[in-house]
Structures are given as C-alpha cells and as structure tokens.
C-alpha cells in the first residue's frame, strides 16, 4: 500500500495546530522496508501501581512485551529491555490500543518516519513498525515522544543496549571488556503528575507542567532507599572483576553521580570514548569521592575495577533541581546503592 506522506508531518502542511494540539494520527506502513534480523513488539500498558516506601501507590504507564513468557508480558515499570547487536536490522512494532503514542529510540539516528516524533511525522493510534539498524554499540533508551513532558514522566521508557558483534562482555569493538554489568535508570517522580490523563496540558490547558516537584527517587523502578538492598539494583562482583555500570538519566533532575571506588567514564551517549572513529576523544577518569553531573537523557558508562579486598562500596545519585541546583525534596532527593565485592 502506498504511503500518503501528506497525511503526516513529513509532507503535510505544518501549522500551529498540527505542531502540538492536533498532531497527525495514522498507522502507515514502514517506508523503504527491508527484512529485519530481529523484531520486538511493545504494547502500551497504561495502568500499574508502584508501591512507594511511604505506602502511597503511584500510577505508571509503560510498554509491555506481549510475546514474553516472563514478567515482561505484564511489566509495570520500567519497560522491558531492548537488546540488539550492532548492525542488526531491527523492527520495533508499537501497539497503541487506545490513545496515541510513539516510540523514539533515543540516541538512534534513523529516518524521520522511524524517529517517533509526532509533530514531524505522526502519532500511532493503532500500530506502526519502526525500522532502524544500530551502527554504534552502547547504552541508549527508548521512550514515548507524545506529550513527552508527561508521558516520559509517567514511565513510558525502557533501556536499549547495543552490543558489538562480539556480544555482551565487550562495550564496543576495541573498547573495554567487563565481567559484571548493571543497567541503572535514574528517575524522579512527582506523584501529582501521575494523576493526569494522556492529553493533559495539550491545546492551551494550563496544568502547571512547568512545575516539577519530585518526591520519590528511583533506580530501575526501585524507589530509594530500597535501592540500597534490592537485588535489581545492587551490584555483586568478585575481587578484581571489571564492573560496567550503564547509567541512564531518565529523571528531570541534574544527576550528581559519585562512587566509593575509582571509576572511568568509557562511553557517553552510545559513543565509545577513544574508539577508532573518534581519535579526538578519550576516557574520563572519575576518582573515588569526586562527582560528575548528568543532565536529563544523558548516558554515561562507568567502568570500575573491583578491588582485590572484599568489601561494600557505595554509589550515590543526587537528584538536583534544574533551577536552584539544590537537592530535591529538601535534601531527600538521593538514591544510593552498593557494589558488593565478595
């Protein structure tokens, strides 16, 4: 079936209305379709409550995997991992059911139609298959790009890892090897926002989406302080092993990151530092006790040598306000975890 690009932001007339309020809603075929090496399906899942440490239940939306046989089939939050090899042609099929959504594979550079930005292409009311082929191994994420200010906060995101052809254990071809891997997604949660509906704030409505006052601070779906003990977050390594922490800032805070061990930032935003194609870059040391700031949506990959002597070593994420620079929630905006060497 021929694709009518005039019914989308690609060739349709862009107006003030089509830009934000009355965005293109279609379910086209994928243009320039080629045979995929791997396929994923992501179904919009819009009702799961996460129990916070103070007893409050907060509603999250996410993408689930309807083909999964494990917990990913009905995953509340965060959405299930997409993990592929560099050079594979990937098809991600979004199923929206009610309301419209998109998937933007953040850090991927595909064509406009496959980039998931509604006002430049379209929002999906039924189903669409995004086509992409990652050229660079590294750490990414995927998220909904409709009313992003709200849908991203509601939890419509998941991690996306691209392994080099050698497979897991090597960060990128020619780059560092690792024995132990952790994928940490930092998030901050303003429970007031989690009461809104899908279209809140669109078309002239003032629902104060410029005010963000998070009260819960999470790593990979686990609220602090459980991040100190939850097996989904803490890292276990043997002495002298190489630990890779892939950190995605999914928060709207400036994240201040520090470890009790010497670390090295070996990749940023899915690009290995010092790799052959980038001779103008090099890894960045982060000595123990010093910190680095990550803004929303940045990804840093930290390589840590587990010491020879067993012990427990801390990791600290401070969630700082984008305006005042202060730690959120009167200083409570911190998520800590541990690297246990045994």
């Amino acid at each position, binding site marked *: 079936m021929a*694709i009518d*690009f005039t019914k989308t932001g*690609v060739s349709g007339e862009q*107006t*003030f209305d089509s*830009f*934000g309020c009355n965005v293109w809603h279609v379910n086209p075929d994928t*243009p*320039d379709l*080629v045979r995929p090496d791997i396929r994923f399906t992501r179904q919009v899942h819009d009702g799961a409550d996460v129990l916070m440490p103070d007893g409050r239940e907060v509603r999250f939306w996410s993408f689930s995997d309807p083909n999964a046989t494990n917990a990913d089939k009905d995953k509340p939050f965060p959405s299930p991992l997409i993990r592929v090899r560099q050079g594979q*042609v990937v098809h991600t099929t979004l199923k929206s059911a009610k309301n419209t959504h998109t998937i*933007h594979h*953040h850090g*991927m*550079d*595909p*064509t*406009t*139609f*496959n980039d998931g930005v509604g*006002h*430049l292409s379209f929002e999906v009311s039924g189903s669409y298959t995004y086509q*992409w*082929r*990652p*050229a*660079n191994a590294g750490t990414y994420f995927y998220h909904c790009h409709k*009313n992003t*200010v*709200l849908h*991203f906060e509601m939890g419509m995101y998941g991690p996306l890892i691209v392994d080099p052809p050698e497979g897991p254990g090597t960060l990128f071809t020619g780059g560092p090897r690792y024995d132990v891997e952790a994928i940490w997604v930092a998030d901050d949660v303003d429970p007031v926002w989690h009461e809104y509906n899908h279209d809140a704030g*669109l*078309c*002239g*409505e*003032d*629902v*104060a*989406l*410029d*005010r*963000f006052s998070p009260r819960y601070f999470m790593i990979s779906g686990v609220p602090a302080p459980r991040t100190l003990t939850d097996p989904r977050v803490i890292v276990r390594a043997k002495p002298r092993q190489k630990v890779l922490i892939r950190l995605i800032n999914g928060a*709207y805070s*400036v994240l201040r990151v520090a470890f009790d061990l010497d670390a090295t930032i070996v990749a*940023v*935003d899915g*690009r290995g530092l010092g790799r052959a194609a*980038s*001779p*103008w*870059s*090099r890894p960045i040391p982060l000595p123990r006790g010093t910190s680095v700031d*990550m*803004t*929303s*949506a*940045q990804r840093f990959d930290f390589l840590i040598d587990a010491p020879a002597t067993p012990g427990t070593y801390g990791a600290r994420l401070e969630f700082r306000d*984008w*305006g005042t*620079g202060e730690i959120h929630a009167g200083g409570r905006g911190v998520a800590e975890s541990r690297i246990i060497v045994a």
Partner: protein
Amino acid sequence: MNRRQFLTYGGAGAAVLSASEEAYAQATATRIDLSVEPADVELIDGRVVYQLLFYGAAQSEPRPVIRVTEGDLVTVTLRNNAPEPHAFAIPGAPGAEIAAIAPGGRGEVTFRAPRGGTYLYLDPLNAPAHRLLGLHGALISTPRDGHTPGGALTPFSAETLTPATRLLFDAMRDDPTARFVGDPWRPAREKIWLFAQIDPALCEQAELRRPIDGAAVQRTFAPRYFTINGLSGFDSSEAETVKPKGYVGQPLLIRNLNAGRNTHAPHIHGNHVLELSGVGADGSVVVRDNIIERDTWIMRALDRKDLILPFERPQDIPPGAWPPKEEPFPLRYAMHCHTEMSQTAGGGNYPQGLTTHWELLGPTRPTATS
C-alpha cells in the same frame, strides 16, 4: 523618550551588527551603538509580557548579534531608555564593562575584541534579574587566524587550538578516507541558539516598578516560557535564523548560549554533535582537548558551547534503505531540551517550548563531484 516597543511574537529576526565583513581584515576600530528599551512582547500562546531588551541603533530587531574580529578595538555605546539604571558586560572579554547608567543617560566603553569564539553580552546589574528580563545577546568574535596547521578553518584562534580540535577539523574534508566525508567547515555554516527563560511574574514586577532583589530572583525564578533566539515551539521550529539546513557532507557550527537561570538539556535527533568548547571560570572560551560526541549536552546558566553538527548520513538507517526511495527528503530531525518542563508554554501546550528541528536536504551535495 520612553520608547515602548511592541513585539509580535515571531517577529524577532537576525539583526546583525557587524564590525567587519572581512574575516581577516587588519585590526580596525569598530563602534557598536546599543540601547536598553522596554518592550511588550507577545509569547507563543498569545500572552503579552513586559521585557527589557537591547536594540541596535538603526535596528528594528532586539538582541542584535554583535560580530567583531579578535584584537580589534571595539567601542560600545549604550543609551538607557528604561526607567531604572542599567549596565553592560561581556563575561570573558576583559575591560568590556559599562557601569550603571541612570535612566535617560548614556555610557561607553572601548576594549579589545576577545579571542575567537562565542560570548554573551548582558546587563550584570541585580544579577540575574536584568539578564532574565531580556537584557542579553550574543557576541561572536572571529579569530584573526583560525586555521589548523593542516589548513582547515576553525572558529577559534589558532593559538588556542588543541590537538583534538586540529584532528577533528582536518577530518572534515572531501576524501573518502576522512571520518566526515564532504566539505570542510565554512564560517557561513553557522547557527546561533541563544536560550532564554521567561517568568511572567518577574516581568510584571519590573513593569509595575516594584523593587527587584537579584538574590531573591535567583531562588524564586519560575520560568513558564522557554525560547531560542526569542522564539519558541512552532515559531522557532520554522525560523530560518534557528533551523539548520544542508546536505550530507556540509558540517555546521552551532553556537549555543544559555542566558537563563535553569539548566537545559538540549537533545538532538538524526546526528550526534561534537562538543568543541566550554567556558572557563573567568568567562574565557575553553577549547576542548577531549571532544565528545553526544546526543544530549548540558547547558547551565551562562554556559556557552560551540558544537559541530556534522550533517553526516544518519548512522542508524539500514544500508538497504539508504538513500530512502519512498520516504522523501528533507529528513527532519528535532532538537529539544530533554528537561521536558521546558517543552511547555504557560503550563502546557507541549511542544511549544524550547525546540526546533534541522533539515537534511539530500544524500549528496548538489555541487559535489563524484
């Protein structure tokens, strides 16, 4: 005397006060005439706010881009047509300061244009209040000699170039072995993205001439509008002064400045950018020796960063789908701040905030010989 301007949102364009059209002319003396003017500005959702803006002498557009050549003697004159004192400064340009000028008064300063790079001129009084009310603009200093030893042109002074910048600019050339096959960077391939934030409550405070305490503003500033070169949302996405365009192989320099208080997280789709420079503690331009490719970078208050948008073939399109046959050019890619509160205007209206996009016009340059 009190010339109150009314700006229709979207009217803000690219006024340029050029000290020298010749990039590498002899050192010359240059004069820039500015004034501080009160203005009523209509925002993207129709709301009108009171701002204070710099204007050039014969210009109808606010916050003119000032262009100078490194080492030139530059004289800035400033007339204050606002009802309270105003001043002038350029962080990183030693001596470029005019002390407080009374309403109706005039001030003047002469200084040497700083090293090649991107600078922010502003009213430092009552910091950050006057800057946040609109009193800021971009100053571009063209290097006297910006070449790498390999002959590539850069936006920085040759003596500040690092090994990494030399490698990178030499890697943009018409040679199949180069990382960025295509044209070298050319000075005309440039966009200025000057970020700002507007809190209507602060605007009203100024309009009603209530006393403003800069330290209090630093704590309580609550922006509801987020602009690039004075525009936002639909307007900034379509403005030629904001939106980069080009073919694969036509690298472009983004001169990014943040005049606001809040930290932005600009994120670009379609290509990663290469971060070339930052700001030293004294405001000077710091040319990086570790050039990192990013899809998201950090822009704190008063940050200035120069970045290369390489206009390379988007790397994650399957080879069997490149160049696309069904999907038409131009490919269009968003740039937006990922601290998504900045994507709103007046508490909602996503995405009428700090966003634009860039256009990839085609897979090969029209003039390319192949």
